[in-house]
Structures are given as structure tokens and as C-alpha cells.
């Protein structure tokens, strides 16, 4: 199952490292990353593969939200199908 992880918040050192480390801990493969910083606002979108993940969707989602709360970031994970449905015919 593929999912989209979005990370939004104020830019600071170590966001990418922290999120990627968390992904590795969960056994999640990162397929693609895009990142932009506009006037200090950090936005990162990751496409990830949950095929070999070692935790449930809910646990991973909760873990990422917790990481985000600790760093002042909004981190969410959603199944990719919802974006495909809304933006492709």
C-alpha cells in the first residue's frame, strides 16, 4: 500500500532527518520526496511504500503525529488513493 506523508510547519534544522529516521524505524521505504521552503514555511511531501512496514497504519500515523507535535509540525499520512481519485481521471 502506498501513502502520502505531508509535513508542514516552520522550517528548522533536522526535520527531514527526524522524519526519515522515523520511516526507517517503521521499515517504510520512501519512494519520492519533494520539499519547498517559502519565507520560512517548510513543506515536505513524501510518497512511501508501506508494504514491509512493521506496524499498523494507525500506529504509524499516531507515531508521526507525535513526532510532529514534539517539533511543532503538522505531519499526516493518508493513503495515496484519495489524491489519485481527486486529481486524476
Amino acid at each position, binding site marked *: 500500500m502506498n501513502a*502520502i506523508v*505531508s509535513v*508542514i510547519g516552520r522550517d528548522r534544522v533536522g526535520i527531514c532527518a527526524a522524519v526519515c529516521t522515523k520511516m526507517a524505524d517503521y521499515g517504510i521505504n520512501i519512494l*519520492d520526496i*519533494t520539499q*519547498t521552503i517559502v519565507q520560512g514555511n517548510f*513543506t515536505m*511531501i513524501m*510518497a512511501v511504500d508501506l508494504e514491509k512496514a512493521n506496524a499498523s*497504519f*494507525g500506529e504509524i*500515523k499516531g507515531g508521526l503525529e507525535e513526532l510532529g507535535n514534539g517539533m511543532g509540525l503538522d505531519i*499526516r*499520512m*493518508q*493513503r*495515496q*488513493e*484519495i*489524491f*489519485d*481519485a*481527486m*486529481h*486524476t481521471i
Partner: protein
Amino acid sequence: MLTQKEILSTIEMIDRQHLDIRTITMGISLLSCCDSDAKAACEKVYDKITRCAENLVRVGEDIEQEFGIPIVNKRISVTPIALVAAASETEDYVPFALALDRAAQTCGVNFIGGYSALVQKGMTEADKKLIRSIPEALGRTELVCSSVNVGSTRAGINMDAVALMGRIVKETAARTQERDGLGCAKLVVFCNAVEDNPFMAGAFHGVGEAEKVINVGVSGPGVVHHALQSVKNAPFDVVAETVKKTAFRVTRMGQLVAREASERLDTPFGIVDLSLAPTPAVGDSVARILEEMGLEVCGTHGTTAALALLNDAVKKGGVMASSSVGGLSGAFIPVSEDEGMIAAAQSGTLTIDKLEAMTCVCSVGLDMIAVPGDTPAETVAAIIADEAAIGMVNNKTTAVRILPVPGKQVGDSIEMGGLLGSAPVMPVHPESSAAFIARGGRIPAPLHSLRN
């Protein structure tokens, strides 16, 4: 490949523009629960609903979590109870309502619809018993919703049923007096009721439907409003195109959720209802969309034309996005549930007469309107008759959900809380319709040729 912009636009729709799935509604046929013993029938009703909808709420919550899209309500609709209870040798149908309420509580759903009767051409003994029991049934239950279909394009309008429903609405208000007549918020009088509507209070599972089915109602007034802000002063063809594109996206999301829910619950997918269903939250209003088109206040001249465009464009955009569209599909204009409508009614610009005109071009009818508590039953019946006539002649669904609030006058306001919102008490015409309603009988079905 998805672009960052597309992903962020979806997230923004959910976060800031109130995009959600308004309801996943499981329709369940209760025809197999008929029994000459009313007690046994009620037990069968309870057992069947709790068995079929056991996992409905959990599956809804799982989908919500995985897709990151709020699913506001999980609901159940059932076969009109007048048909189910007809087999039982009893004068009292209230136990059926209590069984529905218990089943809904056990399943954890928000509402259960189908305490209903279809009497567009005539009333059976069972229909009469059910209709007369509505005030007590709604007074003694929390989650049960009731609806009565009093007219159709093919059958005409059953004016005896209309007169009766005027009295029933008043009695229901009196029964729930301590809660500002809240029972009436759970009672809809229809013309041309549809069998696959997932929205409350008018949902029931029609007899032409399968054993059980999943219907999904989408929402999204906030998303449409936001999209229109980007085409300020553009001509109406641009406005229509913008609404269509937005409705397409919203409906695709609804279709995805419907398919997932249907697979996980091992229940056939029925329809997606493409409705713009507002909530009292700021930024989730149909009235504000109409105002965005250039009206100072919803209800002023031009409102009906603006709503006609909106309603049609929503359907055109949505139809291609779903494999099966049904239900009510269009724009809802419930006064108390729409922040912009509340403001327009409070300012006096939006009146019942204007709302009636708007119902000629929107998806349902006079919805969630509070009127003075001393409004006569005949006036309520006459409002129902007017609305049913619009539905009958125009071949569309119309409905009346009106609250004659005990002890309240024009200028007062009632608070219902949650999605039901708050409503200013609106004036009705003081002149009597009593002799009109007293006639009874049937208004014949309209001619559908010679249409000039």
C-alpha cells in the same frame, strides 16, 4: 504522478474548507422481519439491524483514519416501518420506533431513518397507525427519524394526508416542547421521496432496493465557495465550469469512500449522493456561495437564478465522477444548518416565500425552518401542500421540515446545537388556509404534455 500542489490542495480542502464525507448510510431491508406478533417483529427488527450494521461505525472510522478524510455521520436507513408493521396485530407502533432506537444505540450510529409511510395516493390502516404514532415515537426516542411521502408526480397529492401531517407536525412540536420542538427536526414530509437517500431526516430504504446497501452522501459548500473566490467578476459560464470541476473532485472522493466501505462491509454499493450539505460552521455555507456570485445577501433578487446554476453545475460535475449517482443530489438550503442562511433570515432578507421559490430549483425543500408556536396546523398543512405542488409539477423531490416552536414568536431564536444549528423564528402569513385544507381528497396528478 501527483504534484505537490495537488496534494496540498486536497489537504487544504479538508483542513480549511470543511471538505468531508457527510454520511455513510447503510440501507437495510426489514421486509423479512414482518410478524403477526408485534413483539416478535420488534425483536427481529433489532436483531437484523444490529447484525447487518455491526461493523458500520468501526469501518467508517478506519476509512477516516487511513484516508485522512472526516466521515461526519454513520447512519442506517430501513424499510418504511408502516410496511413492516402492517403484518402485526397491534394498534401501537411506538415499540417499533423504540426497537429502531435501541438498535441504533447498539450500533453507535448518529441516526436511523425509516419510521416512514408512503401515502401519496392513499393511506392503509397501517399507514394511519404509523402516522398517528409519530409524535409519541419521536418524543420517546433519540435517534429515530421519520418521513411521510404525501405526493408524487404520478399520483398527485393526498390532501387528507397533508391535513393530517399539519396536525402531526404540531403535535410533535408539543411532545418535544421542552426541547423547542426538536422532534420536528426529525420529521420530513415529502413529495416524490427517493428510495436511496442517505441524508437525514428523510432517509428510508425503499422497497425496490436490495437486501442491504451502502449509500454515501458527500458535502463541500466550503470547497465550492473557495473555488468561486478565484473567479470574481467572471461571467456565469466560468462560474458554472468552476463549480463543475470542484463537484467532480468532491464526488470522486465520495465514490472512493463508498467503494471502500462497500468492500469492507461486504455490502453492495448503492449510490453517491452529490449534495452540497451545509453546516452551521463559518465557511461551510450554501448561502455564502450564492453571495459570492454577487448577491449582497442571500434571499435578495437573483437568489433563485444563482441557486439554479449552482444546483445544476453540482450535478453535472458529479455525475461523471461516480459510477452511480442518486439520492437527492443537489444543493440543500436548510436554514438553521447554514450560517449564511441564518444571517440572511435574521436580517429579514430571506423569507419563507423566497425559500419556497428557491425550492423550485434546488434539491429538496423548505428545510429546518422555525415558525411561531401558534401557527395553526392548517397553515403548516398549507405550507406542505404548496411545497408538494412544486415537487409534483416539476417532477422533483420536495420536502418540508418545519418547526412550529412552542411558545416562540417572530424575533425569537432557537438553539438546537451540533449540525442542526440555530434558527430565527420566521413569520408566516396570518391569513387562514383552514377552509382550503378542510376540503381533503386528492389533487390530481399533473398533465405532462401540452407543456406550453
